[in-house]
């Protein structure tokens, strides 16, 4: 069975600083990878996804993540964060042989301070 580990439960950072949210996964088969963001009292919003092709994927708001198959990682990065990036971030995997069962990590709370 697949599993996802988000290595940091909380990441405090100052505005305009770079940030990396770490995600490692375990699976015996090929996977699709996702990052979701959740603002307080809201549902999940898809930030970016890796399905195939280039291992570096980008979102429209400056986040990027790189799929590293050898290290089974999918870390999320942003070179300069804004106050509005404060939220909880979830890494998720979907085994290519499964039917829609996303497995999520425990989440990382990103807090951006002025």
């Amino acid at each position, binding site marked *: 069975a697949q599993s996802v580990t988000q290595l940091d439960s909380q990441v405090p950072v100052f505005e305009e600083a770079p940030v990396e949210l770490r995600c490692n996964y375990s699976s015996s088969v090929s996977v699709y990878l996702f990052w979701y963001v959740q603002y307080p009292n809201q549902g999940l919003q898809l930030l970016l996804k890796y399905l195939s092709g280039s291992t570096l994927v980008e979102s429209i708001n400056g986040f990027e993540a790189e799929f590293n198959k050898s290290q089974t990682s999918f870390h999320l990065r942003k070179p300069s964060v804004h106050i509005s990036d404060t939220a909880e971030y*979830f890494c998720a995997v979907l085994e290519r042989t499964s039917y829609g069962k996303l497995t999520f990590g425990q989440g990382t709370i990103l807090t951006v301070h002025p």
Partner: protein
Amino acid sequence: DAGVTQSPTHLIKTRGQHVTLRCSPISGHKSVSWYQQVLGQGPQFIFQYYEKEERGRGNFPDRFSARQFPNYSSELNVNALLLGDSALYLCASSLQDRGYTFGSGTRLTVV
């Protein structure tokens, strides 16, 4: 275009009661999945339905059931509610398992 809509947004129930949560997927999406998110944790998979057939079930007791209707909307039912069922219940729809769009969820509180 409307996104995934869930109703109700909030619900308070008493232990032992039954609850029905509803989800309407994005137009054209035939797959609906349900997740439970307990406070402070990541979402946990409950069910997936595709074309009205159950395609996957997570590690939840038989008190949890679901169905999908011909218009692809879905209901999640929970019987004999326990305090531990208090959570945010999320519905997601997808076109071809390539990306899942989530609704805003139903916040269930069991007292």
